[in-house]
């Protein structure tokens, strides 16, 4: 549908994907746009592969992004970026946290953790690796990886800084706001734009 921006967030259960997608939705809504978002809860969240579909624009019908149509893939974990890369359109962009979390199939020796950068390059996916683990550590809070990635995403989306800040203010607990604002700004700088 014309005028709709599709952002697929992915990672593993417990990485703060819901917060990141809520901030993204909030920013779009504050910009006066129609918004839909979809994810699943329950068993899928127990450390499994998790996605959140965010769509915003003039009028949004489907809560799910169609494969091959996402403008942006926001991956909190490297392997998950590769797993969900087929949702990107040819001209789409993947922003990927450099974090590697071993799935149980790898921990138990049934499978090998793949070379994600090589895989993405071979497939021709346009991507930027964000050193978010190191940056989160420098900011003193390992939990802000999601906000660093959100900041990076903001550089590729046409939403004003004011709506991002307001969405963060409304979604992040007050005592964690300052570190999240700094994480957001650092992410925006690292986006490679």
């Amino acid at each position: 549908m014309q005028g709709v921006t599709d952002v697929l967030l992915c990672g593993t259960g417990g990485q703060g994907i819901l917060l990141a997608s809520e901030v993204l939705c909030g920013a779009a809504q504050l910009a006066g746009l129609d918004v839909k978002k979809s994810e699943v809860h329950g068993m899928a969240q127990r450390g499994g592969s998790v996605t959140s579909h965010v769509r915003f624009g003039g009028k949004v019908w489907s809560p799910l992004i169609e494969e091959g149509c996402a403008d942006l893939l926001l991956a909190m974990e490297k392997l998950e970026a590769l797993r969900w890369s087929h949702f990107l359109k040819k001209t789409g962009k993947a922003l990927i946290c450099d974090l590697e979390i071993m799935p149980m199939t790898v921990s138990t020796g049934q499978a090998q953790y793949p070379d994600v950068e090589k895989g993405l390059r071979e497939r021709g996916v346009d991507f930027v690796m964000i050193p978010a683990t190191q940056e989160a550590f420098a900011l003193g809070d390992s939990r802000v990886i999601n906000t660093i990635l959100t900041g990076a995403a903001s550089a590729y989306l046409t939403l004003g800084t004011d709506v991002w800040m307001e969405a963060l203010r409304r979604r992040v607990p007050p005592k964690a706001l300052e570190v999240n604002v700094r994480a957001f700004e650092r992410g925006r700088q690292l986006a490679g734009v």
Partner: protein
Amino acid sequence: MKEPLNTVTGGGLLLSGNEAIARGAWESGVHFASAYPGTPSTEILEAIGEHYPEISAQWAPNEKVALETVAGASFGGARVLSAMKHVGLNVAADPLFTLSYIGATGGIVIVSADDPGMHSSQNEQDNRLMARAAKVPVLEPSDSQEALDLVGLGLDISEKFDTPVILRTTTRTSHSMGVVQVGPRKEVAIGGYTRDPRRRIPIPAFAKAMHARVERRIAALEEFGDSFPLNRIEKGTAPLSIVTSGVSYAYVKEVYPDARILKLTLTWPLPWGLVARFLEGAGEVRVVEEGEPFLEEQIRARFLLPVEGKKHIPVEGELNPGIVRKALAPATAAEPSFAPAEVPLRPPALCPGCPHRGAFWTLRKVKASSTGDIGCYTLGLMAPLDAMDTTVCMGASIGVLSGLEKAVGREATGRLVGAIGDSTFVHSGITGLIDHVYNGGTGTIMIMDNGITAMTGGQQHPATGRNLRGEPASKIDLETVCRACGVKRVTVVDPHDLPRMEKVLREELAVEEPSVIITRRPCVMLRKPGKRVTAELDREKCIGCRRCISLGCPALSFDAGEKHPVVDRMICFPECRLCADVCPKGALTKDYDRGSCDAGCN
């Protein structure tokens, strides 16, 4: 749900379907709500508990009890809501089918949250079929706004036609968020109780009249549906005419925007006048619906027209825009961008620090397994723990173990325990335990008591001592319940005390009388970890035996090149030292930090 995000323009709230249902209940004056948690329905009662104090809301031990209490409140003239996942409606089917005959005094809306795609379920049943079997009307929202509106409209239908109403959502309407226009609460007075046995006691003499009334009600609802505002014909110019309902409507609008559409929301009984008007002059007609060919078969049977649906759209799994596009307008599909990558699967796993890990690991150590049940601990089936043989439904672990013993005797009870969570035990394990003891079973039941309903995100239940709103409540004592059922051997053990866990398991598996082991340790979601402590590896001592890896802890992986485990410090849980305890060489060490617990169980 945090502080709602108001838009700068329009004043809408961004709500999930579940949050919208909670809001709709509040706006339409609902007085009482009861539920048992189950994905994807859980957040409805959670949102009511958190945001709408005007509604008396509670967790029931199971869906049957939830529906019975809302029925009673309706008899007293209150507007009521019950919510459950699709399989929860099976548990509540007994009151549902008779409540259909008895009807509603105060409006009754029953939310059935179906889970096509089985994101967190054991089957894909389509509860529109249940509604039809129970002869109660069913409403299907397409988005959060309709989810909100249909609570009030459903209560109106319930009161006008004297019937319970099923509001059937699917995962994508339950868990998708959309912008919703909200309004104030409409205060409705509780009508009060009037004794009327002829209406509320379905002995055959009375029930015959009730059934006749139900049949008249169906005919009246068919006519009502013709002018129901959310059943409508949308004009269009595309070659195919589309009949659709629920979230499938959104997919059709997305991928086939110019279609002539029959958008059905009251989908049983069907509004035959409206359907006939739509079919008049329609060319080729397709039905787009998730799950069973529910609309398709009824329309084809009635009009004997070649209406097609499931020929093009799968029955199994959930729909998405890609599937619907392929069925309606394959030529409009974009060029495929990237083929799906072949990457290792990432199945869900028990959390780092999970108390169930010690119990399952020890079960494997003593070469035993379990008949399992529904909850986080169903993940005990996953490698490397691999400690579960069967799972059927809520509470079945006990009956299945008992039945296996009837077939193969001690071959079953010598190497299997019935593994059931605390919340599931209260839900429907107690009757199984009574049967087990009463009918001479000798198997061991392992109640995995983590003090919460965990899989659905941490809800209170009657054995936690707190109610839905977190207030202190009566707490049933599991040991006493088991003894009252006739079990003489009841042992409580900390599942992370591995030597004792092993000793108790060996003893109880060997003894030929019914026994219960309660493995008691709080869910990690309830713990507030103290200082960050992670396991440390002494590489000099490590012999690469992979015994720690056999715990299946997500915080441990194995470096095959270096032949030693690697600890993921980001997720290693402070208050757990299982890996240090199982290491035969003392290569893994960890200072034990007990932290603190919301449930007050240190």
